[in-house]
């Protein structure tokens, strides 16, 4: 078996020939991998510079488009917020009425409290605290809750 050889032996033989075929493998002179390192670095910088310039040409346009989209959304925001607020207050009243109807026969229960104990103790009585999503959908079906909380993309 002649696979493992003395290094010195191999190098003296390689001085004459570039490659020695040994059992199907070709042992060649170890090459200098970092020979063209300055070329590589300069090439990398050049390609980066050119592509950065090309990127900048469309960056401005993309940014303007984003700002335009944001402007349109902000222009419509008051209309949609007002509509949402009205419906939100309506739904809060419906929830409160539903809770009163549901807990009418339970002794000691007051609507909006835990058996008479208020949830928020340090706030003034007429504060509107936005209930969290589970409370808001407490009297609704599971499918309605999932429809609101799960975003499903069709495309």
């Amino acid at each position, binding site marked *: 078996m002649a696979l493992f050889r003395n290094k010195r032996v191999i190098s003296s033989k390689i001085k004459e020939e570039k490659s020695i075929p040994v059992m199907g493998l070709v042992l060649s002179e170890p090459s200098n991998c970092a020979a063209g390192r300055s070329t590589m670095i300069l090439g990398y910088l050049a390609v980066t510079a050119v592509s950065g310039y090309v990127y900048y040409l469309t960056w401005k346009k993309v940014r303007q488009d984003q700002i335009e989209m944001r*402007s349109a959304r902000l*222009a419509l925001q008051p*209309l949609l*917020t007002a509509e949402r607020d009205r419906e939100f207050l*309506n739904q809060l*009243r419906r929830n409160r009425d539903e809770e009163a109807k549901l807990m009418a026969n339970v002794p000691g229960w007051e609507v*909006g409290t835990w058996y008479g104990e*208020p949830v928020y103790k340090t706030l003034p009585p007429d504060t*509107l605290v936005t209930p969290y999503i589970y409370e808001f959908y407490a009297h609704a079906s599971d499918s309605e809750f999932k429809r609101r909380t799960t975003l499903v993309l069709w*495309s």
Partner: protein
Amino acid sequence: MVITADVYLPPEEELTVQEVNLSGPALRAGAFHYGKYCEFQNNEFMLCRSELNDPRKCISEGKAVTSCALDFFRKVKKTCFKEFTQYANCLDKSSTKLEFEHCRKTQAVYDKCVLDNLGIERPQFGYFCEVKVHDTKRPKPEPKKPDVYPDYTPYLPDDYPRPPAKYGSRFHWME
């Protein structure tokens, strides 16, 4: 659950107004001109909402916003209906996100029509991203003052000796 009987919720009659019955593409098509036409009502409502932080207190401003929107879209329907629907249709069918960049030609036609008939010029693309200053008759709400408790520790008298720090400061530039 946290809405007790003490919390005032407006009755249904107060909250029922005629709503704008338009879908997303139509609203997006008319967004810029609508924003310019109804700028005062919109700014009033958003200022009320951000200052008072309570939807119940801004219902009348919200109704003003909706009625202004209805007014604008009715005017557009009377004068520029075909151009508006063409533009909204283009926005709807060109991209999934209703982007403006694919519909510049129809936008130009619509802009020209609105400028001729209603006299509203389309504001520049970043107009509604800017910070606006809004004058309103409603007084500014007072900020909440910090609580003062009767048993607070008394402060040092003014003539108490205040020597400099014994070993200097932690940062050399604050000495």
